[in-house]
């Protein structure tokens, strides 16, 4: 793998996470528990979609094959998506939505905080802009973790279920594949080994405030970054790609 190829893959990983989670959140607009939450969650979705656009534009330049952001976002086959499994998990209920968001936001924040010092100027600039948005995402999802964890018996139970279920997708965020390794060596990407302890420390801090228990099981699911996804992803892609697939080569 050349450094150029690694940079392309690394950028796609970042972009795909934002796209898939943004897509998941955008399913919820109009269906949330209260108007204020619809508006808040849509803001997060808009931020993530905005971030993935900057990243796809950059990825397309790195690749140099004349692809557009939309071709990268909407015309790859499922196994070419490099997002982590966590973000493709469906919106089972508001608890799943918030726990998924929180598990992602903590990691997203820590990555961007390092990435803004990246030797790659474009990624550093995107990170510097994104972290302002993600700081707010993290505050929002942390508040909701605490509120619903330490709310009613029902909300506590639902949150604990979601934490137990989604826990097995957390460690993948901190894994490093070949592209990651090359980018760490080049000073482009942050070292996940350094991020990991911070990631779990922050999660534990909020779980405690939320009166939620850290799951006792340690088994973890991996594969998203290598294109081995859950059954959920292809359904999401069916929607995401519908127009581009049905009406190829058109301007919209």
């Amino acid at each position: 793998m050349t450094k150029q190829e690694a940079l392309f893959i690394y950028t796609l990983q970042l972009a795909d996470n934002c796209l898939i989670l943004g897509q998941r959140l955008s399913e919820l607009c109009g269906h949330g528990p209260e108007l204020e939450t619809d508006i808040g969650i849509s803001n997060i979705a808009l931020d993530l979609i905005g971030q993935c656009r900057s990243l796809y534009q950059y990825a397309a330049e790195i690749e140099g094959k004349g692809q557009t952001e939309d071709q990268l976002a909407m015309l790859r086959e499922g196994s070419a998506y490099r997002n982590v499994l966590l973000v493709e998990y469906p919106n089972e209920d508001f608890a799943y939505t918030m726990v998924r968001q929180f598990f992602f936001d903590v990691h997203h924040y820590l990555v961007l905080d390092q990435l803004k010092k990246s030797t790659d100027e474009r990624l550093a600039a995107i990170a510097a802009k994104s972290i302002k948005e993600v700081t707010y995402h993290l505050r929002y999802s942390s508040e909701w973790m605490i509120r619903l964890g330490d709310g009613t018996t029902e909300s506590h139970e639902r949150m604990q279920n979601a934490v137990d279920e989604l826990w097995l997708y957390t460690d993948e965020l901190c894994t490093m594949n070949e592209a990651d390794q090359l980018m760490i060596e080049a000073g482009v990407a942050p070292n996940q080994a350094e991020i990991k302890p911070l990631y779990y420390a922050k999660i534990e801090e909020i779980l405690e405030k939320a009166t939620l228990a850290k799951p006792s099981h340690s088994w973890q699911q991996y594969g998203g970054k290598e294109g081995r996804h859950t059954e959920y992803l292809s359904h999401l892609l069916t929607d995401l790609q519908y127009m581009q697939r049905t009406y190829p080569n058109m301007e919209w």
Partner: protein
Amino acid sequence: MDKKEWPLWEVFIRSRSGLHHKHAGSLHAVDATMAIENARDVYTRRNEGVSIWVVESTHIMASDPEQGDMFEAAKSKIYRHPTFYDIPDEIGHM
């Protein structure tokens, strides 16, 4: 219907530093923390503000509009306004 509705809050936004906070509207939230979060999402989507105040609507006391005479006394004190005094133009701005 829910057992208990989220209380109503009034939102005040400072549009840029140096200006007063101005009433922007209302929203529902369970506490002040959430009211500020929601105000940020609802009332600053277009970069309308740099600072937010929230206050629970029930804490606002208002004057009674039926007591219009409350403001009558001030109407006759025109000597409080600069235009009450004749100063010749030659003096320049004063």
